[in-house]
């Protein structure tokens, strides 16, 4: 990731340099290769963007346009009816949205706290079983959620945690905490221990060093962890579908699934409007942490990158 940030840094300082260099390199290539590259990239741009265009275009169409067997390629006339319909329509989209935001944000905060502690312990601790414990936590990431689902359901049933935000958040921790701990371990590994040792020699306590020296240097890691956990919980369908039993406590993914596979099966305009609104926060989150994407996606696996 270091390479990525330096390239960006260089470009802002000397905008013409790297780009002109690349242009010179590009001109040196054979015309056949150049045209192949351009065609492939254009095809891939279309492949990536046309579905998204289609989602937005459909969400702006009138219901009569959507119902055509041969859909028009662009909305004419455009209408915001699908969007307003979400908030005063037959199912509680606003409630779904609120539940999604609340559970995703709380899960992110809890996970960041737990992961910072665990990651620091993994990275700096010297105690019995540290190695095996570290790899055990990594291995739990491979556990299929669906295998845990049935026993968790029974556990929550007995503890009256079903159909509650708290139960859902605790459930989310089963994938967010192992992931976050590994991600934080990687970030803290990258902070030179000499800085901490200097503070320790000054006589500062362990907790003081952790809170005032290490954590401020690991802010990027904390943010990346939080955003990734937000993305993963925002995306999760399986847990809320199972642990939440009434529609007005649902989050967006199961809420939309239950709404649009039932009675409103063919309301594609409304469905695409809901889909677009559900995408926006996630897209913002992704581009906000673009620099750390690879690191987060391969947490623990690519500690060298």
């Amino acid at each position: 990731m270091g390479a990525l940030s330096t390239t960006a840094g260089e470009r802002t300082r000397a905008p013409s340099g790297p780009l002109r260099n690349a242009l010179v390199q590009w001109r040196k290539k054979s015309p056949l290769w150049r045209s192949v590259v351009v065609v492939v990239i254009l095809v891939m741009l279309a492949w990536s963007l046309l579905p998204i265009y289609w989602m937005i275009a459909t969400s702006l169409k009138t219901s009569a346009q959507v119902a055509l067997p041969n859909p028009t390629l662009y909305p004419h006339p455009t209408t915001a009816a699908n969007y307003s319909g979400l908030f005063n329509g037959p199912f509680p989209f606003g409630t779904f949205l609120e539940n999604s935001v609340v559970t995703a944000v709380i899960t992110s905060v809890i996970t960041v706290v737990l992961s910072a502690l665990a990651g620091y312990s993994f990275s700096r601790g010297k105690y019995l079983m540290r190695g095996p414990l570290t790899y055990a936590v990594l291995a739990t990431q491979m556990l299929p959620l669906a295998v845990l689902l049935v026993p968790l359901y029974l556990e929550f049933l007995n503890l009256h945690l079903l159909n509650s935000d708290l139960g859902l958040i605790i459930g989310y921790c089963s994938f967010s905490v192992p992931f976050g701990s590994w991600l934080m371990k990687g970030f803290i590994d990258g902070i030179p221990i000499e800085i901490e040792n200097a503070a320790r020699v000054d006589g500062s306590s362990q907790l003081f060093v952790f809170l005032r020296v290490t954590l401020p240097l690991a802010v990027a890691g904390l943010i990346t962890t939080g955003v990734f956990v937000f993305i993963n919980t925002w995306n999760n369908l399986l847990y809320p579908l199972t642990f939440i039993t009434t529609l007005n406590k649902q989050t967006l993914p199961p809420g939309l699934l239950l709404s649009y596979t039932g009675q409103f099966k063919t309301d594609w305009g409304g469905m695409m409007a809901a889909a677009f609104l559900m995408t926006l926060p996630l897209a913002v989150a992704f581009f906000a942490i673009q620099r750390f994407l690879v690191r987060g996606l391969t947490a623990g696996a690519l500690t060298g990158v």
Partner: protein
Amino acid sequence: MSARSPSAMLPAPVAPSLSSRARRQWRQGRLAWMLLPTLAILAFVIAYPAVRAVQLSFTSTSLINPISHGIGFQNYRTLFHDSVFYSALKNTMVFTGASVVLGGLGGLVLALMLEDFLGRFRVIQTVLLTPWAVPTVVAAFLFRYMFEESGGIVNSVLLRSHLISRAVPFLASPKWSMPSVIVGNVWVELPFFLLVFSAGLKSVPDEIVEAARTDSAGKLSIVRHVKLHYLKGPAIIATLLMVIANFNNFPHIEAMTGGGPGISTTTLVIYVYQLAFSSYNIGYASAVGVVWLVILLVLAVGFVRTVRMETT
């Protein structure tokens, strides 16, 4: 505080003495407590449920009738003759294999071409990553709509360009449902591979590529002998991660087809979910889950081994 005050009064020593090094190690030993909250919650949401899943698999527990009886290996014997289980296993393999191969190769080719195209022209890369920012359920809805038999844009375009004479029931026929689901999944996951491979290519030292070029090595041989060598590590890890992710991929399939039509897109995760929460047969669902867990454990051991190899 008491441990802190004596040393706070002294000036900071230039080189840590033996006693202060020993004290530091003792302090670091205490870092174990920081792990306790994490271990406590993981015991609650992972360790206990995992043990309970194994125990449930030897019972006839049902969600409707929670009085359970131990029935020994009966669930596993049933599973052994369960044709749906084998279909689900096959579907899981096809879904995972095709998604990873298509996404991985696509991502690799695209990363290599993008690197050539105006250097690392970041804007294009960012745009190509957009599908990855689309929530899984949304992508599934989107492809469900596009693959509709009537009103779906895919059929509409194919019909208008006279490539087909009758609309294809992409999601309504067992023949087409799995390929359609895979196409949607590749759309979401290809950017992941692109991102990992692009990052890998940045770690290739320019000098080595230059050296190969001055030795008048051809374009393809530079790719084959130089760049692919540097991409091996990222490729292994990305593949393993995506194999595991797709083994567990519930939202994409559930939102796109719900496992149908028939059982044509029912993977193991869908099957376990349906057994538990549509048939309420949680004893049997747990048995399927345990067998699936064993399959995944083999993958996980391989994964951890690879990580150890890469990091040490």
